[in-house]
């Protein structure tokens, strides 16, 4: 019985792992900033949200993603709702690609992801600059975009291993 309960708890945690990691990442902002590598930054939540929306993972609740966006805004100090909007847009684009694609291909997904994050970051930048008068460095956005794009492949490989684990 105890063994069953332990297994049940483990299975539940494992099944909800993407959401747990998403919440940890938005609360903790683990982007390795403290290494002081100039300009180095990437948006891990974008990769995670896009990947699991694309794969239509059953435990990836959009409402929880939306709440994660609100938390991210609070932690970073952006106007409330902006990250939620970005995450929702990422989900919409991923969902659209999923519906349109019959034979998925990683490289195609990868370049589509570049288009999506570029578009979302442009929208975010425009909102912050035009409506909230924030002073922002374009270079940071471009480099953040680039590193997020480059890291999509290795991180999606890790996520595919995770998905294989859930099917097993």
């Amino acid at each position, binding site marked *: 019985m105890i063994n069953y309960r332990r297994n049940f708890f483990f299975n539940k945690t494992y099944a909800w792992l993407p959401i747990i990691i998403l919440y*940890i990442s938005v*609360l*903790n*902002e*683990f*982007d390795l*900033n*403290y290494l*002081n590598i*100039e*300009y180095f*930054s990437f948006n891990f939540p974008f990769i995670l949200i896009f990947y699991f929306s694309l794969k*239509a993972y*059953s*435990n990836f*609740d*959009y*409402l929880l993603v*939306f709440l994660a*966006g*609100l*938390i991210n805004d*609070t*932690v*970073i*100090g*952006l*106007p*409330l*709702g*902006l990250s*939620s*909007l970005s995450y*929702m*847009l990422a*989900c*919409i*684009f991923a*969902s*659209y690609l999923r*519906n*349109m694609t019959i034979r998925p291909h990683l490289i195609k997904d990868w370049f589509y992801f570049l288009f999506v994050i570029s578009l979302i970051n442009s929208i975010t930048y425009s*909102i912050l600059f035009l*409506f*909230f008068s*924030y*002073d*922002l*460095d374009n270079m*940071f*956005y471009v480099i*953040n975009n680039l590193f997020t794009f480059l890291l999509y492949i290795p991180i999606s490989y890790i996520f595919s291993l995770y998905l294989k684990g859930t099917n097993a």
Partner: protein
Amino acid sequence: MPASRDDFIIAIRSAFLKKNVKQKFSLLTLVFLSIFIIILSGVNFTPIKKIKVFINEIVYRSSFIVSMPENLIKNSYLKIKEYSNFYSDYGYNKIELKELKSENISSEIVKSENKELKELIEDYTITKDKILAKVIVDHQSPFLKTVIINKGTADKIKIGTNIYDRSYLVGRVIEVNYKSSRVLLLSDLNSNIPISITPGNIQAIITGNGKNLGEIKYTKDNLIENIEDKSIAYTSGTGQIFKSGIPVGKFSIIDKKILVNFFSDFTQLKYIFAEVESDVQKKPDSDIKDFNNSKSLTNTEKIKLNLLNEQIVILNDSNSKLIKKNKFLNSETNQLNQKNLDLQSKVNTQAEKIEKINNDNAELDFLKLNLIYSSKCQKTIFKKGYKVGSKEYRECILNKGKK
């Protein structure tokens, strides 16, 4: 063609509206909700503000707890780095300490003068209490450089409160909750700091460059060329955003680019000071002002007088020592002069003696030769020669009889 357009529309519709088994809301609903929240967050509405404060309090605490493992790794990494630089830092600090000790006295005078001038400018007195606050979240995003501290409205912190690391300026509060606040760091692109630059007393506005450094945004009368390497920036107090005279950073000119190295390392902030201010009654009466000024003047003068008295004592002491030394040296010089004269006379007598001996020796030699060669040089009836005692006779004797 119509078929592909249908596919597109179906894909869009299903992306926006279709809910999976476990999804409670469609994406379109959530997008509208996000836009609604963005609009609401831009509106200054009290219930929303209260909800925001409540969310902030929970999220900041949760973020602090979740960040603990990463902070542990981060701190260990920084500690190792610190230990490896320990010896070089020690040497540098030793030199710096010596320099600072020598600057301490003059800075005391400047401080009191500064206080006096400030009281002349402002017609009110401010009691300043610096309260210690802990940095609970320091996720410095590449876009916004902010930290969250564990003090809020409950501790009299308000928007615009100046934040310090020791006596160096760190930033100001831009968002306040009940028990936490968000501090905008000087290195952020949105932070503008009116500063004075010394030497030269140049007025400028600096802004963060988003990478722990500052850049000049505006300089009065294009005085940018007058800024020297290692010039010091301190707040000018213009615009009353920051108090005047707070050290900000040091200038460094790299490849003709003027950058400000902030005195405080914003990546290492653990505890900071928040300056809580409470205005005490305004004092418009000139009498009270004069009284305060005279009081502050006496304080300043007291410090100055004390320092001058100390200097006089030191000077007197060194003066008496010099007089003593001078006297001693004078007497010694006299003695030596006397000795010198004695020795000179001795030398003279000895020189005379030597000359006399030399003369005697020459005479003795002549007499010796005279005994031998007198017959050759002497004039007789039968022989041609010189008269005895004449100069030629003497030369003949000395030439050993050769004429």
